[in-house]
């Protein structure tokens, strides 16, 4: 019941706003106004996705979701940022968690958060200097580039092999054969940063 009332409230807010502007050709200002108002009331939703496009000028982000669908989002100077100091730090390819509110068919970000990479159980991180030293001293390492093979072709760490994650996961348990010959060796996986 409460939701219904809110919706009516929003529609009339927009209508009044359009009337005040007297020009339907400037709806974006209307929506920004409505979005600010709505932030207090409307139900916030959460989404996690990978940034496919980001425009700092238009303060707009396009995300791809797991099913490859396209999700468009606007942010503003009042959007709460977590894990970064400025929205400029968000780059294409990074995963982010967004709390947002939908107003008039548009999604407005309440908060943008850099998704922290969670390592599966039994896996540990290696930092740059440790990796550099390990490559120098331990010839028994198996370094695996998990990116698509095109990216590997453009440039990879000198001794690395190319086993794209997509290939490994598509093969289901047959994928184990790709790794089986390195069973007793130290595996190190990498990709293009926090993707």
């Amino acid at each position, binding site marked *: 019941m409460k939701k219904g009332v809110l919706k009516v409230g929003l529609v009339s807010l927009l209508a009044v706003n359009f009337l005040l502007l007297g020009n339907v*050709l400037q*709806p*974006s200002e209307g*929506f920004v106004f409505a979005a600010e108002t709505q932030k207090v009331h409307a139900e916030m939703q959460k989404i996690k996705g990978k940034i496919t*496009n*980001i*425009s700092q*000028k*238009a*303060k*707009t982000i*396009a995300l791809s979701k797991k099913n490859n669908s*396209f999700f*468009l989002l*606007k942010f503003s100077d009042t959007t709460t940022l977590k894990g970064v100091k400025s929205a400029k730090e968000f780059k294409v390819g990074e995963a982010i968690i967004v709390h947002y509110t939908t107003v*008039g*068919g*548009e999604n407005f970000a309440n908060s943008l958060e850099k998704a922290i*990479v969670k*390592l*599966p*159980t*039994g*896996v*540990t*991180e*290696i*930092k*740059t200097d440790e*990796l*550099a030293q390990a490559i120098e001293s331990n010839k028994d390492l198996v370094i*695996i580039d*998990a990116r698509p093979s095109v990216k590997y*072709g*453009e*440039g*990879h*760490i*000198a001794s690395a092999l190319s*086993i*794209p*994650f*997509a290939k*490994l*996961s598509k093969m289901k348990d047959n*994928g*184990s054969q790709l*790794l*089986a010959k390195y*069973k007793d060796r*130290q*595996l*190190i*996986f*990498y*990709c*293009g*940063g*926090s*993707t």
Partner: protein
Amino acid sequence: MSPKSAGLAVKWGHKNPRVYIEGLPAWKKYGKHTVPTAAHIANGNIVIIDLRDNTKVEAGYIPRSYTIPMVELEDAEDAFPQNLSAPIYFYSDNDADLAPARKMAQEWGYKNVNGFYDAIAMWKAAGNTLQKGPALSATDETPINWQKKLGSGEISIGDFTKSLKSDLIYVVDARTPEEFSSGHFPGSVSIPLEQMKTRLQEIPKDKFIVVHCKTGGRGEIGYRILKEEGYAVKFLNAECECDLSGEFEIW
């Protein structure tokens, strides 16, 4: 990607696989380089530049290379490709030249500049042979010709320029009203990206739409919005500048 791969390795019985989470950006920042595959050097849509002196080049170079000796590099800016996103690979028999060469090209604005270390040995080790004789040369008058391969939804600069004269095309300028008013393509319509979704009714469904901005970033998002709405649409993935008289430059 890599944490998930490591997770699979654990599942398949590998002990303590490790993940280099920071990945390649950190690796390069640390001063380490990366190596391309021989296949990419042989067939990739890239520009290969041999920094050695001419006598060495003529004795054998990696096919498709342009010859620009290191001592001439600083005067060769105008011989470089017009498109700043061209992937450039420098090589030499003196790998100490690669870092300064990269730095120079980056200062000229090239966004994808690589040093190809230990190039000739790697090329031979992959079973390839060197080409003898003069390599490709580039001058200010005939600069290196590199054509971008169009990605999904992109319109070429040539087709875009032609389409500006056509009535069938509807050009949407996704920049801000301020940017639009300081100069825009003849016949284009200003719909800033942030208003695109709410002004769809202004965009005709029976025309071919091209969205552009200053660099292609907002243009691509606009393209995706309109595509999802069922428009026949492309975007200009290039940098452009227009002045008040309607003159423009795209690169």
